[in-house]
């Protein structure tokens, strides 16, 4: 009788089962990461429908390439990277990553005492999805995934400077949205 189970061993069994094409194991892998990966896809896709398309393609690729997973990084990280790459490819195929030069005049908002605690996850997601595709990509890759501008530039075929400027615009847009929502909230409270 096993006194404890080795989580790594369970993951290995899961991987082996998926490679062998066992549908129950593939379902288990899907159940394990579906929610987190759906959130990732939602951040990159403009709509839920497209996010599910991306996620479907990405999971198919996960199953097809799992045999090449060398276990030199966490499986979740590997799956997440496939989601991100699939999302980038998806948006590139739809020509959504063309550079947009229209400058949006936004006020620079100080973020010294910045807090998002009053916003739900859906509200934050809505803010991100409201960004133009290129801004959304740069913001996701930099602010949430943790890439630096040099890496983002190489991933999106743009220069590091362009990545920086696009990020600052995306950031300003988000700050503007947040500022407007806060002002609207204050007006609503005062009027009520």
């Amino acid at each position: 009788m096993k006194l404890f189970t080795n989580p790594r061993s369970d993951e290995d069994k899961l991987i082996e089962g998926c490679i062998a094409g066992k549908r129950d194991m593939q379902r288990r892998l899907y159940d394990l990461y579906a929610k987190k990966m759906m959130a990732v896809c939602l951040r990159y896709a403009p709509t839920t429908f497209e996010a599910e398309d991306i996620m479907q393609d990405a999971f198919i690729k996960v199953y097809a390439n799992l045999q090449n997973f060398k276990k030199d990084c966490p499986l979740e990280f590997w799956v997440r990277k496939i989601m991100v790459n699939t999302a980038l490819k998806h948006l590139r195929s739809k020509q959504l990553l063309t550079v947009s030069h229209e400058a949006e005049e936004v006020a620079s908002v100080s973020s010294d005492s910045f807090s998002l605690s009053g916003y739900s996850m859906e509200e934050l997601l809505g803010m991100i999805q409201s960004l133009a595709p290129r801004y959304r990509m740069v913001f996701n890759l930099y602010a949430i995934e943790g890439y630096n501008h040099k890496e983002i530039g190489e991933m999106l075929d743009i220069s590091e400077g362009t990545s920086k400027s696009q990020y600052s615009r995306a950031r300003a847009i988000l700050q503007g949205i947040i500022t407007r929502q806060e002002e609207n909230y204050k007006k609503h409270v005062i009027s009520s």
Partner: protein
Amino acid sequence: MSSAANDKREQLEEEFRRRMHDAEATPSADLWARIDHTLTMQENSVYKSRMVLYRQLAAACFVLFVLAGALFMYQFSKDTNQGSLATTGQLPTAAAPETTKAAPEALAAAATKIPAAQVPGEAMPQAAAAGSTRKNNATAPVLASVPSVSAAGVGARTANASQPADKAYTYMAGLPENAAQSGSITAGIARSLTDSKLRLSAGEAGRHRTAFASLQPFYQTARQSIAATPFLQGSHHTSRAPLGAQQLLRNPVAGLVAANVIQEPGTTSSTEGAAYKQQQELALVLNGKKESESSSDSRWTVGMAYAPSYFEQNIGMPDPMAGTASMFSLAAGAPAISTFDAQQKEKKQEEYADNTDPGFSFSFDARLGFKLAKRLKLLTGVGYAQNTARTKSNYIIRPLLGEPQRSERVVLEPATAFLPTFSNGFSPDSMSIASTDVYNVQYRYRHLTLPVGLQYEGRLSKDWYWYAGSGVAANFLIQSTIMASNDEVSDVNFNSGDDSPFRKVQLSGNVSMGVGKRLSNAVSVSVGPEFRGYFNTLLAEPDNALAPQGKPYTIGLNMALNYDLGSSR
């Protein structure tokens, strides 16, 4: 993935990262059903492709089975014919004494160049006596030997025949004119001598074979002998005995026919005529059957072909600044490279294009041919092909994988510029391209081939001919290997059972033409250029590769050695 130390992250970034990085969202309930459906469709397509492969293998096995069966049947019928001929040569034991009556006289006359007329018919008993006693006559050694030869011709029935037979061969080899005059000695006699358990030494046997080989051109079939014989044309009364010996010497079967005729010297002309007709019919049937078998046998040829060739693998390289590739793609997707490395990468790919040279490629076929018409031949068989290309490189690519959580980079296995195009797996974040000493990279593909084709031959002169051929082949990939002479770069090897990016089965078409020379009735050689084009790309899924993929081809020199199974006898 890593964060840049120089990039200042403010509160907004940290807030978004904290709230969003590990956020969860529930996908729609039918998403798994869609994934399940897609997986099922993929499995079905894989199953179908495997079924196609198995069908091709089954078809190939069937073809080989039929060919092997045909070859076996051919060999079996050949052995049966030889066995029946040998058996037939030993059957008429009772006729031998009478037959040998005529043989000594004929051969003695031929040996001493005495016209047959000088040997009176009444002398036959004496000659026979000399043949049987082998002592008294001055030509006793020669004459004594002759009956043994004759006896051997019909089965070598005498127990003491070994020594005279030896002498007789020596004697006859030295008298080609006489042999021509009295009829040629057949290979059947030689076989019969062998069958009669004559104990010849190896040296003697070799000498006799040489002697008989020199007499082979004088061989005639029994039908020809009978038809040309004056005896059988009505003038047999004056030359019956010599002709009987001739018949015996020419062909065991014809000899039997003639011997049976000779057995009845006292019969009336009408009886002889009837007997002659019967014997002639028998001879015609026997020889006709043999000729028809011979002509059908000559339809089959076996051979082998060797073709060194130039091989163009036609594998495209991805664009240096291609974006992130699909994870499903064979090509590495969107590796991040610095400006310096981008220049290096462009150089590397230019180098690949410039320095890709054909290696030593060759194919080897074992062929079986069947003549559909006089000059048209169907060829099939089994072959082995090894196609090789090579490049010289002085760059090493080191793919890098970053992890933002730990701000670390993992260096993957070094590769040549060619290898990442086959990386069917995880895409690196970036890559480092470093210059190094020049090293060789060799790409080798080994195939088992099952060809089938047609070849037309035209005559140029007596011995020379030209040919033009075309065909198709199924090429089963046995092994594909990419080898680098640099120790830092790993070799890549895919065996037939491995999950390889290369196509498992390729169909190819080939055309060739050239000239050939007949070295003998059975053996010929040919040489000529050959073009072989593959109908598919080397990569199994070219649509998923970043760069367009071409179809490989070879241009080589085909050298073949053919052996005509029917002409050898």
